[in-house]
């Protein structure tokens, strides 16, 4: 008899976990996946691509229904898990009976933050998180609504890019003095800004959203410095918050996220968390790669193997608004480090490598990311770079040919 294993959350982490479990513990668990979104798990990274009209919505599905079926997974999507009873080992589902588990995995992900400003509750204020949001935004864009996107991180840029590409006039406002300040240094952010602006998106930095005007619907956005922006819609994309309510109410230890150990186990036995909702060694990762690494480790653990998660060296490695962006490690360059920079701004390239004690410790790349993974490998392996220093900026093939 297979043990009942319940996964709450039907996102990318869940799909990967099922995949990994099927590889290492096929048949050991009877898996049920509970997700509130009314569709099969999809690739959330591609939502902006759907918004931009580059990909069809159905094309972003991670796995076809048959794939889940073949792995014996009971899919309960469009269902909200409302409560976890740790003692009874049950998950309660809205309007349904509880389902028991012997192992519970929380992959509840995160939610966009809504700024606490006057007018935040007006009609026309949206977020950009799931495929329902995308449908809504596509409607706005089709109507050529004037949109203000609040937040100059990855999510905000993606929303702005998608909306602009779908035809809406877009202004992006960002609280900080540069875009993606957690991933980019100032020159990289400046280049990214100019590349995004070339796509027709207006960007305002040092722009603190003070209030949203409107009677019933959004009419404009007022910034703290008094500037006023006309707007028919506002998209909040100023950060995410791990979804921890379910865990917290179940008495599971939470901090910013659901606290897990190196086996991804929460404070409660047999209850685990992976992905954006989890907090490992004080870090809540907001990217897909750590979630996949966690899923892999957890699957092994659940298969009875000795597997530990030691944290991820986070690398941002993706296309932002159509621009390739990579950053990893100490991309700013702490005191005592050296930096090597290649910038060709008109050509859309900025590359910075940070070297500390003869080793690559950080990198940020805009435009030309061909050697991103090699840099990541060098950062992770802490291999000495003296011999390749002269050429490493220009890629592995040149550096290793020299």
């Amino acid at each position, binding site marked *: 008899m297979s043990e009942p294993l319940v996964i709450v959350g039907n996102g990318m982490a869940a799909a990967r976990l099922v995949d990994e479990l099927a590889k290492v513990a096929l048949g050991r668990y009877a898996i049920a996946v509970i997700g509130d979104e009314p569709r099969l798990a999809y690739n959330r990274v591609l939502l902006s691509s759907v918004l931009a009209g580059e990909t069809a919505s159905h094309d972003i599905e991670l796995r076809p229904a048959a794939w889940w079926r073949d792995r014996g997974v009971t899919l309960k999507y469009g269902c909200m898990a409302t409560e976890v009873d740790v003692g009874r080992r049950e998950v309660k589902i809205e309007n349904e009976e509880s389902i028991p588990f012997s192992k519970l995995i929380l992959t509840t992900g995160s939610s966009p933050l809504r700024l606490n400003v006057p007018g935040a509750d007006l009609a026309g204020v949206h977020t950009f998180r799931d495929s329902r949001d995308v449908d809504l935004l596509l409607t706005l864009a089709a109507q050529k609504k004037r949109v203000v996107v609040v937040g100059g991180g990855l999510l905000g840029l993606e929303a702005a890019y998608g909306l602009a590409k779908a035809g809406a006039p877009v202004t992006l406002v960002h609280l900080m003095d540069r875009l993606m300040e957690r991933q980019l240094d100032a020159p990289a952010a400046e280049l990214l800004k100019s590349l995004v602006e070339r796509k027709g998106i207006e960007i305002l930095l040092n722009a603190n959203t003070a209030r949203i005007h409107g009677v019933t619907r959004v009419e404009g956005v007022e910034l703290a410095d008094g500037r006023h922006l006309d707007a028919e819609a506002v998209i909040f994309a100023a950060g995410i918050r791990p979804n921890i309510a379910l865990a917290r109410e179940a008495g599971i230890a939470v901090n910013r996220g659901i606290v897990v150990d190196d086996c991804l186990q929460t404070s409660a036995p047999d209850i685990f968390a992976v992905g954006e909702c989890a907090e490992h060694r004080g870090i809540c990762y907001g990217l897909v790669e750590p979630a996949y690494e966690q899923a892999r480790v957890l699957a092994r653990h659940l298969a009875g193997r000795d597997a530990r998660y030691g944290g991820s060296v986070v690398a941002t490695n993706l296309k932002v608004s159509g621009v*390739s962006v990579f950053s990893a490690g100490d991309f700013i360059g702490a005191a005592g480090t*050296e930096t090597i920079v290649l*910038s060709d701004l008109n050509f859309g390239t900025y590359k910075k490598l940070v070297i500390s004690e003869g080793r690559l410790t950080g990198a940020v790349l805009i435009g030309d990311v061909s050697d*991103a993974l090699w840099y990541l490998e060098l950062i992770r392996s802490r291999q000495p770079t003296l011999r390749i*220093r002269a050429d490493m900026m220009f890629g592995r*093939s040149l550096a290793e040919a020299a």
Partner: protein
Amino acid sequence: MTAVDPHLRVTRTTCAYCGVGCGVLATPDGRGGAAISGDPEHPANFGRLCSKGSALGETLGLENRLLHPMIRCDKGSMERVAWSDALDHVARRFQHIIARDGPGAVAFYLSGQLLTEDYYVANKLMKGFVGSANVDTNSRLCMASSVAGHRRAFGADTVPGCYEDLDEADLLVLVGSNAAWCHPVLYQRMLVNKQQRGARIVVIDPRRTDTVGEDDLFLGLKPGTDAALFSGLLVYLADNGALDRDYIERHTSGFEDAIARARSMAGSAGATALATGLSEQDVLAFFQMFANTPRVVTMYSQGVNQSAQGTDKVNAILNCHLATGRIGKVGASPFSLTGQPNAMGGREVGGLANQLAAHMAFTPPDIDCVRRFWKAPRIATHEGLKAVQMFEAIGRGEIKALWVIGTNPAVSLPNADAARAALRKLELFVVSENVTSNDTVDAGAHVLFPAQAWGEKSGTVTNSERRISRQRAFLSSPGEARPDWWIIGEIAKRLGFGAAFNFTSAADIFREHAALSAFENDGNRDFDIGGLKAVSDEGFDAMAPVQWPIRLNAQPQARFFAEGGFFANERKARFVAPEIPALRTETTAARPLRLNTGRIRDQWHTMTRSGMSPRLGQHLPEPFIEVHPDDAARHGVADGDFARVATDYGQCTLRVVVSERQQRGMLFAPIHWSAVTATGARVGSLVAPHTDPFSGQPENKATPASIAPYEYVFRGFALSRAPLELPDHVWWARVAVNGGHGYLLAGNADLRDWQSWLRSTAGDDLAEYTDFGGGVFRAASFAGDRIETCLFIGPARDAGDWNVVKGLFAADALSNDQRRMLLSGKSTDGLANAGPIVCACFGVGRTTICDSIAAGARSAAEIGARLKAGTNCGSCIPELKRLIAQTAPNAVPQQLAVAN
């Protein structure tokens, strides 16, 4: 002045460079340039050209070209003026200075690159009508010692042999001549002789140059000891029955004194070896070869001439040929190889301060003869100041007006910094030039006359074998450039000598020149081209290369003196007993080495023409100092590094080349670089101004010098479409490159200074690579897809590959990949290139993916299975699908079906 026929037809002309005087076929391209090839019918080269001649087409551009008369205005800047104003001004100032200080207060400094007709008019004006013999020429630095030696021995400045002798000789002796680099076409003729007839070659030079072939006898003698070697040879010839007693008896005088002096100097092979620093074995080998080979040609160039005993060296050589009667015979002669295209023509008109005109001297009969011919009552009656002394007189303020025509003395004279400084003292400093800027122009010229350049001017030149060839125009004159003879004639007219300068064409002048050569000649003077004094304009235009003498109604004559017939001393040649060889200077503890100077293969003089050719810039692009490995070790300098070379006269900073070809104790530096082509490489400024007592030629090849390492932390280069104003305190050398200007750099300035300099110089489309910790800064600015300016600076051996970047700079457009890799400064040929990244998670490039599609992958999943692309975050899957749609062959649907 005749307008140039713009039809694009082949024009026969003569090369602008050395004294070989090769025939050139120039075919204008109608856009100001021309295709250049050797003239197969010219007897100097039979179609062959050297690297410099072949590249003449790259030197015809108008960049930096002087196109209008300019006068320095009160504010100090040069302003364009009308011809008439410039001419009036110069004439008035000359007139005033002559009236106030006498004719000795004015001087002309001419050039072996002038045409004979230009030379003639300048010489006639100064010597005949101004009444001063202060007419000298850069030929003073080139072959004045040969002139003086010829005149002492032959009674005239006669080159006895001809080029055919190089084909016919069994022994070719080169003394102080790097013919392989300096007279390449003649050298090739010698090699053909060597290969086909088995001629032996002996090279006598302190430096093992490229002229020394593997199986040649090389005599690397101590500098300045040539006369000892040839005195030893004379003794050997006498003691071994190799003399032509009959020839000596009938056609010479002074043999006994000469052989006595020779015996005292180098009485045996052993004594000769001691005096010259050679091995006795080598000395004997040479002596025997010479003694046993009737057909021997001894060629000599600057190594002999540029010496304070140059004239004696020449005579020591001539003595050996006179003593064996090997002169003016087929394959047997002494042979002075002249350096410049028209040094010989200059000598023929008398364009040297110690000649009058047409191979006549400052003797009362000659003066009288020329006075009557020219109808010149004020004709100069004594020799003027020779180049080095002329500039010393300028420095002392005795000469107050100078007209420099077609040469760059601020670079080429010995003690060149002093010469340059002297120019600033002139009351009137006029320069006839092709360029707007060179060290001489920049030394404070008051008036610039734009002269026609090679390809525009028309007249004659004479090569080393006395062959007169036409230089013809095949381009129209740019701007307001005029022939030099016209400019000089206009001044002469304004000075009131119109009747004597009423020339309307080069042919006019040539006819008068020819007539003077024949005037009261009667075979007393070697130089006689009276046969051409009535040549028509058409005949002049069509004139084929012709060797002088060309006496009226006489048979042509290729050689002189086989049967005697010298031009003084009762028609006898004179043996001259040379002084004991001694360099004018001593080395000291502070100046322990001797600096030799000379040419390199692909540059010419001060590079005002050859420096425009990218092809010629490739060979040796930067100024250097060559040093023997032992001296390098002793003085702490290393190959590729920099060194300060100092003499009592100046100092230079040069790239070090360590070479066994250099003699211990000797340094060698090329003469070509100037303040407009490099910093700290004015090698003329190092050279001592000691001159030969007979020829006035300076000792350019043996100045006591010291060498010390000079460290530059950074090396590098810049390439730019437009000339660059480089920051101060940077060592640089400029070189022409395809598409613009190259600069080789060295410096100690902070890299951030380079960065701010470049940012102030370059445009907005700027790429930068900075590794300040690693000492590297590289940057390039672009105009569209083309590099506009780029700069590579780094530690000594990590500044980037000059040749690779030069290649990219030459391109009209860079591909994206080329631009991406440009600042690596390295060749990326053969490197794997995956193309732009599509799958960021696994770093899979477009090229790799397309290759996989071409190899059969027909779905994103298949690509994923092969390359992992798209199997992590999956965000590239849409692009993978697009690539499949774009790339895959038509068979896709079927294949897809199979795959699914």
